[in-house]
């Protein structure tokens, strides 16, 4: 049985502005605005292997995300578990659709860094999802 419903699944597939959440070394909450891509039932984030978020999520992979389009009256709070994985060659070659307009040369540079191993993928598998007020909610 899927962890989230079809409405939630469609929302994840339609929006890429995602706040990835975790905990710092002292256990306090933290988060990072990211571009999150919905692939094969998971949310995927590209980041530097040496980034703080990789260290934090490596220490404690229990995570959450808030998918919050800038023009949305609702957002989706997702719970899940993060894993750090090397890039899939197919993913590296494929331009990423995004809510953020990215110049082609910047996207190409990110893909090259992914291919070289400088960047990795944080993959979050949702275990539950809850609707919350969105960016434009009253």
């Amino acid at each position: 049985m899927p962890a989230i419903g079809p409405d939630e699944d469609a929302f994840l597939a339609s929006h890429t502005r995602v706040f990835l959440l975790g905990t710092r070394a002292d256990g306090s909450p933290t988060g990072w605005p990211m571009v999150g891509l919905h692939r094969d039932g998971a949310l995927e984030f590209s980041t530097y292997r040496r980034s703080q978020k990789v260290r934090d999520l490596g220490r404690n992979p229990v995570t959450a995300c808030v998918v919050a389009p800038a023009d949305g009256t609702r957002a989706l709070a997702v719970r899940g578990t993060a894993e750090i994985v090397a890039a899939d060659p197919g993913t590296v070659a494929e331009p990423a659709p995004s809510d953020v307009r990215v110049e082609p040369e910047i996207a190409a540079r990110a893909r090259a860094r992914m291919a070289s191993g400088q960047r990795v993928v944080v993959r979050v598998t949702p275990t539950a999802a809850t609707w919350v007020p969105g960016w434009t909610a009253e």
Partner: protein
Amino acid sequence: MGTRPDITMSPDEVRAFLATQTRAVVVALADGVPVGSVGALALARADEGVDAVDTVDAIEVTLAPDDPLVGLLGADDRVCVIAEEFPDYRSITGVCAHGRAEPVAGRDRPTWRVTLDDTTSFAFAKIPRA
């Protein structure tokens, strides 16, 4: 490997950016697990209309009364507030404020004050162009 550019914002830049933001992601803890929601954001001015933006040292976040984070912040006041805008890649700007959520009395909706003494920030406009 080259040195990555410093794209953090100064305290003045952080305050100026936050003054333009009205919404933020609020992160609390449920038994140590991060839980997020979206709330209203404002600079915390001790005396509205008198304090200049450059004297502000805290923000206020407001949640809907039925938001699950209301109870969570009552049980554990550790909080993170994230404001961000992304009109395009080179204009991505964000601030993440970490601290303790201090309840603000006398408001229509649940509101907390969070100081700005533990922040991370980024302004992609500071990335040097190739």
